[in-house]
Structure formats: structure tokens, C-alpha cells
């Protein structure tokens, strides 16, 4: 196994995605509740960043704000220097579950964002992404005939098909069983390595973060601030019994405040 350093994606060049002083407050029962506070983060082009934190800390809020689905109370998100003002096909959010359109076939779902393309090109793209997520033979199946893992792969394919700069994933494997989850991580890494998109991935699973990410961002509990950014200096494929893996995982567990023993 090659023990080369993970290339740190162009730290010199301008960041793909940057969050500046993100602040987010909800109004609830007449009281203002601060969810996010003073968050600064730069993500490089092609980087895989995981966001972890205690349950209810505002991980999803941060992701939705960065993808343009929520408006911020303060601060701004920029992608390639351009301020994010709303959802945009250049950055696609993949939801935890039920994100695929149940009235469309696998092909129809993947082609959903491609209606402006000429027919031949659309068909070619659909075929490419059916193959990328290994759904060959299911082109004309409806989501109700697919397993949970297949539906999530379909959602990733639909997102990739429109050629987004950034992929936001909101606990995409959270609703899957643990075996499927491990398989899906491998699939996502394979796709990420062949397509090289910037990925921003929210998870509550420490192992998932250490297995996937170039860097892991740890949020504190509410009002959430960035507690730590941990670089995972291991090349893929990662040995999950190696000392380094366990060190990094323990470091994250400690940051989140979890015990080593149960």
C-alpha cells in the first residue's frame, strides 16, 4: 500500500467554497436562538470535507445554509468568490432519504436536471451515470422497486449528472443498515476519485468521517462554532485498524466529548 501523503488540494489557490462569519438564529416562541456563530471555513477545489458534531448542533443547518436553502442571519457563503443567494444546479444537495422522485424511473431521475441538453447528449450522460453508480439493468425501474442503498446511489447520480461544482451530502447513508453504509462509503470514494468534485459531507458517524474525509470539521454544541479542523493525513484506501486511523478517530471522539469505553 502506498504510504504517500494525501495531496493537499491547492492551499495556495483561491478556495472553492468559503464561509465567512456564518451566523444563524432561529426565532422560536418569541425567543431568538443562536444556532451557528462566527463560522469561518475554506474548502479547496476537489476537497472532501466532513462536518461532525453532537446531535442537534446545527450541522444540517450549516449545510442547508451553504447550499443556499436557508438565508443566513449574518455572514456569507461564497463559491468561486460568488456569494450564494439561493439553490443552484452548480451545487447539489443530496438528502438523507426520500430525495429521489418516486414518479420517475431511474433514467428519469438521473435525467431530471438535463432537460435543456439535446436528446443524444442527455441519453449519453444518463447512461454514463447509470454505470457510475452501478445501476445497470435498473434504468426503467421505479424507486419503489429499489433498495435504500440503490436509492441513495440514484440520488448521487442525479446530482452528479448536472455536473455540479460542489456536492453537499446531508447524512446520505444515515438511514441505511450498517453493512450497506460501509459499501456505500467505498462507492462514494470511488466516484469522488474518478470525478473529483468538491464534497461537503455532514455525518454523525465519526468512523465515516475518518474513512472518507481529507479534513474533518468538528462543531461544538449550540451555538455552534468550529471547535477543530482535523486533517486526515492518510492515503486511500485507508486501513481502519492502523494506529494512525485509531489515533485520528480517538482525537475526534475526544473533541466531541465521547468516552473511549462503553
Amino acid at each position: 500500500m502506498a504510504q504517500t501523503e494525501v495531496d493537499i488540494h491547492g492551499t495556495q489557490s483561491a478556495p472553492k467554497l468559503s464561509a465567512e462569519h456564518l451566523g444563524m438564529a432561529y426565532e422560536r416562541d418569541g425567543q431568538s436562538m443562536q444556532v451557528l456563530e462566527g463560522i469561518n471555513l475554506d474548502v479547496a477545489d476537489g476537497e472532501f470535507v466532513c462536518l461532525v458534531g453532537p446531535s442537534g448542533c446545527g450541522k444540517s443547518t450549516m449545510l442547508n445554509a451553504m447550499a443556499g436553502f436557508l438565508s443566513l442571519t449574518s455572514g456569507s457563503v461564497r463559491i468561486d468568490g460568488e456569494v450564494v443567494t439561493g439553490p443552484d444546479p452548480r451545487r447539489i444537495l443530496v438528502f438523507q432519504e426520500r430525495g429521489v422522485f418516486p414518479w420517475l424511473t431511474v433514467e428519469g431521475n438521473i435525467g431530471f436536471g438535463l432537460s435543456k441538453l439535446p436528446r443524444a447528449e442527455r441519453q449519453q450522460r444518463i447512461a454514463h451515470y447509470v454505470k457510475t453508480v452501478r445501476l445497470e439493468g435498473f434504468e426503467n425501474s421505479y424507486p419503489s422497486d429499489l433498495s435504500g442503498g440503490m436509492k441513495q446511489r440514484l440520488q448521487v447520480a442525479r446530482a452528479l449528472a448536472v455536473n455540479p461544482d460542489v456536492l453537499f451530502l446531508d447524512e446520505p447513508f444515515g438511514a441505511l443498515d450498517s453493512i450497506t453504509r460501509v459499501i456505500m462509503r467505498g462507492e462514494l470514494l470511488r466516484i469522488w476519485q474518478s470525478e473529483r468534485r468538491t464534497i461537503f459531507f455532514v455525518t454523525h458517524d465519526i468512523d465515516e468521517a475518518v474513512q472518507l474525509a481529507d479534513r474533518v470539521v468538528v462543531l461544538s454544541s449550540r451555538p455552534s462554532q468550529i471547535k477543530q479542523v482535523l486533517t486526515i493525513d492518510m492515503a486511500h484506501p485507508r486501513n481502519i485498524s492502523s494506529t494512525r486511523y485509531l489515533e485520528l478517530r480517538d482525537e475526534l471522539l475526544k473533541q466531541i466529548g465521547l468516552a473511549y469505553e462503553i
Partner: protein
Amino acid sequence: MNSLAQPRAWEKFFWPVVSASLLLALWHFSVVWTATRVFPSPLSVEKGIAELASKHLLWADIGDSLRRVGCGFGLAIIVGVPLGLWLGWNPAANQTANPVIQLLRPISPIAWIPVAIIFFGVGDHAAIFLIFLGSLFPILVACVSGVSSVPPIIRNAGRNFGLSTPQLLARVVFPAALPQILIGARIALGIAWLVVVAAEMIAVDSGLGYLVIDSRNSGKRYDLVVAAMLIIGVIGLALDFCFRRLESIKSVRWGFRSVS
């Protein structure tokens, strides 16, 4: 036998035949024992059906009734679905329109007959207007509630692909709400078939409703009255059966729990 037990193949046919036979027997012997001269027995109704079927008029009447339902129901779909999508999408518009809808909704289309005749005179248009009114509200209400129950994730997934509002309504909200809209439309079709008979008794001089009232008025032919009633029942059942077939289309099947 409990509610979870699957009926055996022969039971699916056997029990309905038994209940139908019992009903026919009850009807037949009630007529015989009471020695009524007015109410027809099953046998004379059967002769009545044969008599009607041998005349071309019956087929013309069925055709007229179906045509009126088709026009009125079709118009209700054309008006109700886009209007319902729009109201469901705009809470402000819905709040404005909702009191009017809720006030008009419980008024039986039959009560509109005099108004319909003032508007359209005696004729097809009045009947079609009544059917339209009767089927509009179930479609409208199903559409509004269908739109508001589209999961936020589905809406957001659609918004993410850069659709304009009309595109989002057509390509995401409408198909997501379609199973609910179909349920509303099925109820509306049932109402349309009820209303056409009533409307034809007053507003026009053809159709199955007219056949019922005409059979009574011209010579108290109660065998033909009951025959026409049964024909109305069978066609209504057939319409509902045909409409239910839509639920098994693959692009809406996900929204219906039981799949046969």
C-alpha cells in the same frame, strides 16, 4: 376467520353471488307476497331492460349522459387542477379563496338547478354546468391538500435543479401530488354521475335521468324506472372501475398503499 386471512379463490366469487341471489330472492318474494301492482318484480325489470336495449333510444340516452359527464368532469379537471396547484402553492391566495370555496362546497349541485337554468336555459349547457360544479370542489380540495403535503425534501430537491416556479409546479409539485389528486378526481367522477341523473330529470329531455322520469310520467312504467336505475348503477360501477385502473399506472402507483 380473522381480518388477516386471505379469502380463497372460490370465495371471491361465491359469496358475492350468494348475497346477490339472496337480495334478488328477497325482492322477488316481497313483490309476490305483497301483491303490489306498482312495484315491478325482478323478472319484469329484466324484461324492461331487454325492451329498452332493443330500442335505439337507450344507447342514445347512455351516450348523452356519458357525454355530459365527460364535458362537465373534463372541464372541472381543466379548471380545478391548475387552480388547485396555484392555490396550494400560494398560501395567501388560498387564504383569500378558501372561505368562498368552503361556503360553496356544501351546496348540493341540485340546489343550483334554477340558477343554472337562468344562466344557460334548459339544455345541455345547464346540465354540464351542474356536473362541473359538483366535480370541481372535490378536485380543487384534493389538489390544494396534495400540494401542501408534498414533502419539503422533494420541493427542495426540485428547486436545487434551477427550475422556475411554473416548471417546479409542473415537473415536481404536480407529479408529487398526483396520487392525491386522482383520489379527489375519483370522488368527483362519482359525484358527476350522481348529478347527471338529477340534472337530466329537470334540465334536458334526453339521457338516463330523463329516461327514469319519463318512464314514470308517461304511463307509470315502473319496470322501466327500475331497469333504468340498474343501468345507471352498472355504468357508475364501470366508470369507477375504469378510473381505479389509473391508480396502477407506474408513475402514480407509489402513492397508493395497496397494490393488487
